[in-house]
């Protein structure tokens, strides 16, 4: 990978990969928002489900992390 155009492609690709992080943010917000909606309907059941909440958030976040990984690889490894 040499030349200005290749570097430009690297930067554009990294920027596009950053969109994936935003998409993961939507997913995480969806999980947390739905948890809150359910928790307000039945607050007594909410405490037992926080572990599930964090597992859900972690799995939703994992896919955003792959986008972040692609950005990192483009910036530093390619």
């Amino acid at each position, binding site marked *: 990978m040499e030349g200005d155009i290749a570097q430009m492609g690297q930067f554009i690709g990294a920027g596009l990969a950053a969109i994936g992080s935003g998409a993961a943010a939507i997913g995480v917000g969806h999980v947390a928002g739905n948890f809150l909606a359910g928790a307000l309907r039945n607050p007594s059941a909410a405490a037992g489900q926080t*572990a599930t909440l*964090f*597992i859900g*958030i*972690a799995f939703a*976040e*994992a896919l955003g992390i792959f986008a*972040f*990984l692609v950005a990192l690889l483009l910036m530093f490894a390619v």
Partner: protein
Amino acid sequence: MATESTNTQGKSGSGRVVFFVLIAIAAVLFVLGLVDEYTMDGPNIHPMDQFIVSPLFGDGPIRFYTPTNVTLWMALAVASVAALMVMGTGGRAVIPSRSQSMAELAYGFVRKMVEDVAGKDALPFFPYIFTLFLFILFANFLGLIPMSFTTTSHIAVTAILAAAVFLTVTLVGFIKNGAGFLSLFWVSSAPLALRPVLAVIEIISYFVRPVSHSIRLAGNLMAGHAVLKVFAGFAGAMGMAGIAPILGVVAIYGLEVLVSAIQAYVFTILTCVYLKDALHPHH
């Protein structure tokens, strides 16, 4: 007991103030540390410079036995965990001291998590999971001290932790269930025609686990610390108007304290989930 509870209630307000003042001081130190770099190295501040691994003594090549800033801060994390546990279990008072109640809280928290998520038969693995939790938590918190080094922001560190979890879980799965562990990939609740497709997806997701497990921790901490440095760089460059970025750093620093704790929690709870899959692979 009654005086004890009123005492803590009276203190919690001032404790909160002290907490915020400490965070503000830490943020200002972040900026001051950067201003020092600024005058020495010119205006080229790179927010990723804080993650450079350098030897502690001299500047020779880094080999696997060279003491570096990473090993120093990892050793400090281990030392502080050991200090907390030794101090916490030294007294064994009925009414616990501060360090004892912190140690007991951490122990009870992780033990309940292992029991709830992975089940009672995962309790033999509790010491390992507790060690993981405390090490990651303390490494994260020590990384928040200004001018320190965040060991868990390096994928090399977290990848070893995640690989150890992955190997442990896979070995435990095969030792406990034999070839029955492979039924983890055969989703028996799905229609028969879909099962081979699902098996491929399950196998891929099984082998991607250590990747996401390690990069989640490293990525979150690295991104957070880079954002802190970027804001601190604004403060260094803006002179008197830098008070606004300093306030931003204070807020982000508070967020980073939260993220440090949550990421340690998430790493541990995912370990429990993987362990549960290994002990009970049947869907």
